[in-house]
């Protein structure tokens, strides 16, 4: 919009300015009639026009003090509005409700599981229930290398990750391939009826070269 207006003013201003230099002080009158909608801006003689640049009137003319309050308020309001929109835009991507399966679930009684690895909940909950002589625990079926689900190979008595070949013992302890640590174990507890309650949102790790948490309370159920 500004460009258009100024371009039109320029044509008139150019003639005025080139005729005489002494008229520098008077253009406000002629300018005001040319564009009555913005008299303040027009009062400055032809700033931003070729005539103004050529005639060097920009420096010599006593500049009227321009009140920039109004444009500051408007631009602040516009900027604030856009900033608010952007915040809303970002907030939009964080849903308030999600429809994902619960991380807490029951898998039955301890007596349901025999010695060794039980894979019957792998598809549904991504876990293996493992039982040895003293303990029952739940391995979260996620390779500690890059997060694939390893396969249980009963004939070789080990877990093998199909992505990069990490191997784990039947208790989830890594012994080959790139995996840096044993697979995590999920929190287990018994509800009042004796059913095993698993929580895959609470995992027990054994970080490389550190003390493991596999003996913590909740990491296993003594049997």
């Amino acid at each position, binding site marked *: 919009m500004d460009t*258009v207006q100024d371009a039109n003013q320029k044509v008139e201003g150019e003639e005025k300015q080139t005729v005489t230099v002494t008229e520098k002080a008077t253009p406000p009158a002629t300018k005001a009639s040319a564009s009555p909608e913005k008299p303040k801006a027009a009062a400055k003689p032809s700033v931003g*026009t070729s005539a103004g640049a050529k005639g060097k009137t920009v420096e010599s003319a006593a500049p009227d003090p321009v009140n920039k309050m109004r444009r500051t308020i408007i631009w602040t309001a516009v900027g604030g509005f856009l900033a608010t929109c952007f915040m*809303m835009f970002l907030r*939009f991507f964080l849903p*308030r*409700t999600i429809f994902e399966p619960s991380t807490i679930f029951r898998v039955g009684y301890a007596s349901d599981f025999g010695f060794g690895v039980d894979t019957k909940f792998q598809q549904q909950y991504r876990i293996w229930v493992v039982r040895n002589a003293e303990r029952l625990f739940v391995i979260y079926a996620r390779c500690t290398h890059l997060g694939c689900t390893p396969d249980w190979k009963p004939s070789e008595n080990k877990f093998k990750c199909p992505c990069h070949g990490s191997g784990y013992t039947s208790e989830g302890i890594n012994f080959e391939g790139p995996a840096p640590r044993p697979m995590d174990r999920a929190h287990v507890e018994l509800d009042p009826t004796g059913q095993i309650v698993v929580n895959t949102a609470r995992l027990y790790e054994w970080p490389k070269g550190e003390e493991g948490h596999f003996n913590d309370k909740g990491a296993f159920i003594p049997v």
Partner: protein
Amino acid sequence: MEPEKPDKPVVKTGAGVAVVDEEPASAKENIKAELDLLKKKTSKETVLQEIEDLKDPTKSQIYKSMFRVKHEPTPRSRSLGVLTNVFLHLHPAKINRDAVRFSYTWGMGGITFYLFIVLTFTGILLMFYYHPSKGQAFQDILYLENDVPFGKLLRNMHRWAAHLMVITTWLHMLRVVLTGSYKTPREFNWSVGVVLLVLTLLLSFTGYLLPDDQLGFWAVTVGTNMARATPGLGHEGPFGPQLGMSPYNDVRFALLGGSIVDANALLRSYIWHCIAIPTIVSVLLAVHFWRVRKDGGISGPAPVQLESEMRAPGARAVKKQVA
């Protein structure tokens, strides 16, 4: 702004000359020249100069690479400012003051385009929470209305903008008729506009089914039932049965992806609404705007064309003698 900074160009030209001079020399010297250049670039003076430049971003190399044209208060510089900007170049660098008079245009074309942008923006956001499958679709509408942050606002913006766009398109065409802007040489652009009107209506229609509620379902049932009567292509239309049309091979079948309004119809509606038609509309909009410029601007008399520039057979552009 006017005088060039002495430091930087000197550094650059010096290094450039050095490299050019030693071109036939061994690779070792080339590496040495590169290292010298690197040294100069990381020298204290250069870094200080760059920090100094931060005070006036328009002097920085990044700014200059983005806005190549120097901004000067001359008409040429101002025109270049528009012409070298991808977002502004659709605008004419200069226009006649009278051409933008509100009573000539009502601003309706611009408003329609603005609404198209609003619809694209809100539509893309709505797509993030919408699954075009039976059962899930209506659940997603309820989810958007009641739970998604600003979902209700977005959906209503999309709905109202859609209604408004149909209205403003008609008003735009009305003013084109009233100002006689459909006449030569703008008749081609009028035709493009008519196609855009049809596509606008089709966008409204295909969007109607997407909530998968009773309103949309029956609207699309009725709408596609009309396709049964398409001459030649519908199984209830004239010559349809004679041409072998049945409910399982006619145009309605192709539109719905089946013989009833069901999951396939919903998915087809979604793809037409969100991808296919908007793409076609975008291309035609580009043509439309381009032709507005080439045919003499948003309003006012058509541009003068020399007879020698016109296509000879059947040329019907405005003929004016420029003797």
